[in-house]
């Protein structure tokens, strides 16, 4: 049985990776799962300098989901490279660094700095709903998507994944813009902008007022967007948004994703990633699928 998939020349042992920001840099979850068994670890967003993030409360639970407004707190690229990267290098898994920034220059600074580091791919987050500048502002305008992709590609030594925002009228426009800019891979979806009000305290549940909605609640929107994008572009897609089970992961693959990321599910079940890999194998045995690649985009 073959579980290996190929993302722009990078071969993953299996299609299951972690979703940025939900798995730290892998260390905390390594108490629960063997990182060697993951297709890739995608890190929390890394900026050129340390970011403080938003005030608390930063999260709120919603029906079948959660809202977060962490605001991309991170130690910056220097500490990431000194501390987290060596930790990850100990494992036989691919390393994908999620990159965030406020300006194009910020992104390029990180991309350049990482170009000589043992990082397999870069995921450019142009879709964070929780920061005032950068983030989502880039991800909602096709011209900006294309421009930033082009810039990043100029400096990147590793394949570039552009992470798209679902908070747009037409995801195919953004997917095509990233492709036109030279993106090697797309990942989607980042969180949907949401809000929760605590009716008893009569106040916003997260200090930032709005936050990003994730979890199984959003899966149907994510699957739809992956399907639409897969029909619109030729580059591979990493699908995510609410994956809790092997069936959920397979839904994204059947819709056209080459790989998948598991995010919020880690909070519900720290063993989620490896259980999903096991469940996908069971499915392949049950339906006599020799190669996972047969399933990519198989429902049309």
């Amino acid at each position: 049985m073959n579980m290996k998939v190929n993302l722009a020349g990078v071969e993953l042992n299996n299609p299951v990776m972690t979703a940025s920001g939900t798995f730290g840099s892998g260390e905390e979850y390594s108490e629960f799962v063997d990182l060697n068994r993951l297709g890739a670890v995608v890190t929390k967003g890394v900026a050129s300098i340390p970011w403080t993030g938003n005030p608390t409360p930063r999260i709120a639970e919603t029906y079948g989901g959660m809202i977060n407004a962490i605001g991309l707190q991170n130690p910056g690229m220097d500490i990431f490279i000194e501390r987290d990267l060596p930790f990850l290098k100990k494992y036989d898994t691919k390393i994908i660094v999620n990159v965030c920034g406020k300006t194009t220059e910020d992104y390029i600074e990180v991309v350049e700095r990482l170009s000589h580091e043992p990082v397999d791919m870069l995921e450019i987050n142009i879709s964070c709903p929780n920061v005032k500048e950068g983030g989502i502002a880039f991800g909602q305008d096709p011209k900006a998507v294309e421009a930033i992709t082009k810039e990043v590609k100029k400096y990147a030594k590793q394949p570039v994944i552009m992470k798209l925002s679902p908070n747009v009228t037409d995801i195919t426009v953004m997917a095509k813009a990233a492709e036109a800019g030279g993106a090697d891979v797309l990942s989607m979806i980042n969180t949907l902008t949401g809000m929760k009000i605590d009716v008893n305290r009569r106040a916003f549940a997260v200090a930032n007022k709005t936050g990003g909605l994730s979890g199984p609640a959003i899966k149907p929107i994510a699957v739809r967007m992956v399907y639409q994008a897969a029909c619109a572009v030729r580059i591979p897609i990493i699908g995510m948004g609410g994956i809790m089970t092997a069936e959920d992961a397979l839904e994204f693959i059947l819709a056209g994703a080459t790989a998948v990321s598991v995010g919020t599910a880690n909070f519900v079940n720290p063993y989620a990633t490896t259980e999903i890999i096991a469940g996908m194998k069971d499915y392949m045995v049950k339906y006599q699928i020799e190669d996972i690649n047969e399933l990519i985009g198989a429902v049309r």
Partner: protein
Amino acid sequence: MGKIKITTTVLSQDRLADGVYSMWIDAKEITDQAKPGQFISVYTGDSSKLLPRPISICETNQNKGHLRIVYRIAGEGTEEFSHYKAGDQVIIMGPLGNGFPLEAGASGKKALLIGGGIGIPPMLELAKNLSGTKQMVLGYRDELFLNEEFLPYGDTFLATESGSAGTRGNVMDAIREHGLQSDVIFACGPTPMLKSIRAYALENQIECYLSMEEKMACGIGACLACVCKSSEKDEHSMVHNKRVCKDGPVFKAKEVEF
């Protein structure tokens, strides 16, 4: 071993006061490693609620591998827990967090253990495990719970807002009324209480440890949801944001800012 998530069995459930419950859980994998001041994540059985509820370890029976939590009904999750009966399944993860530094209250030291409301439970396991001299100050709105269980470990002073027992007022009022002195303070309770204890300890230069609270998602330090402002740089991001779930919940008083 390390942290573990298990589906295990409720051993007993008792109502201690209006809306306050005590549950014993079979959890040897966790009690084997647990320290006073650590907490567990309790998951609801309702699949529309994804996130775990952090609840302090109130007591452990290390021999039997039994773990006790005492909790107040604050919303739908704790409401659900309160309906569990002996024999029911409960999903928990732990032990989480750092716990209280027992050496700070070792033999020869005089420790003041201060609990406010639903911050009282973790002080019980601490009282059982501190080798120094202990005095307890427990603050309630009105109805008492757990207070008698502290008696074996030292003098126990009460404060109630209603005045129905002990000092009328809060834990600080009780401390003043009885002129309680100590080398070290351990405290858990509502933020305003922690704030005034912090001010008192800093002013009187008493070593002081506070157990903090914040909304959590992962419970293990990965998501950065549960940070509190810290005077030192935090280990993770070096931005003065310590994670309550991993760097805490127990912090030196001078280390945290409100």
